[in-house]
């Protein structure tokens, strides 16, 4: 199964506070999601060009993220601006992290899967929507989509609309790996968030308990 090019939710926006970073995956590609101190979120390849260390293990200082390994610091465009071991070196423009287009909508951080390419407009905001949490299912995207389609309606933006615990919700899917999918829950109306969260967990458990074909599981 190949990854369809487009926007994918990769994190609940509130989970990535200014000055922090986290690692995630989009169909096995390792990504770092980080937020600078100005509040802007970024999604990059999770790999320092120096030695390949995960930048998600690094630390954010102002509008730079620095690698934990040797401190190489990258600006918000992914350009290396400082190498601590060589403070007088004019860092060449070729030392740069691969960056993706990122956007926030519905309380989620989205990434466009095409590396460096021009991206279409990001997903529209959800009126009064509030991101609740992320759940991870040990099933491929296709299996999760098939299960969701039994009780939810697929929207133009790729999300699934329905209700959990009687509350209207949207579920955005993230193909985490070939065999693992993240569900990002967004409350689309007022309701008991704790009950929705519990219903989401029950939904996840029901997906994993349902029989799936060997072919599906092998995707």
């Amino acid at each position: 199964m190949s990854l369809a090019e487009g926007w994918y939710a990769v994190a609940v926006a509130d989970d990535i506070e200014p000055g922090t970073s986290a690692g995630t995956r989009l169909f096995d590609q390792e990504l770092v999601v980080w937020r600078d101190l100005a509040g802007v979120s970024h999604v990059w390849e999770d790999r320092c060009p120096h030695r390949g260390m995960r930048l998600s293990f690094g630390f954010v200082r102002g509008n730079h993220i620095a690698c934990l390994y040797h401190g190489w610091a990258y600006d918000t465009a992914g350009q290396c601006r400082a190498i601590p071991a060589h403070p007088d070196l004019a860092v060449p423009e070729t030392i740069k992290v691969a960056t993706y287009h990122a956007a926030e909508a519905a309380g989620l951080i989205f990434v466009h899967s095409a590396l460096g390419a021009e991206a279409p407009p990001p997903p529209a905001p959800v009126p009064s929507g509030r991101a609740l949490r992320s759940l991870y299912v040990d099933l491929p995207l296709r299996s999760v989509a098939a299960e969701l389609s039994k009780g939810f309606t697929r929207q133009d933006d790729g999300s699934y609309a329905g209700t959990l615990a009687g509350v209207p919700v949207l579920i955005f899917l993230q193909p985490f790996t070939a065999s693992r999918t993240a569900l990002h829950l967004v409350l689309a109306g007022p309701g008991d968030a704790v009950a929705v969260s519990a219903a989401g967990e029950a939904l996840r458990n029901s997906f994993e308990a349902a029989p799936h074909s060997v072919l599906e599981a092998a995707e």
Partner: protein
Amino acid sequence: MRERVEMVFLGDFEPDSFAEFMRHRARRLSISADARRIDATRVDVAVEGEPALVDMFEMACSLGPIDCLVREAYRLEQGR
């Protein structure tokens, strides 16, 4: 300031793999790396660029790609 050095790597090489590794690293570091000899046991390369970046290239190549094993690395002007 730029410097030009002749580097030698001795070990067990997949020549195509090591050549591509050197090209990739040189491109990333904005230095020139002109391979003079690449065979199964030895690589000679002329490198030119900022000294700090040349040092980084040497360190990267001394680790090399996964399918090559560098046993020794030195510079010709060091008298070897």
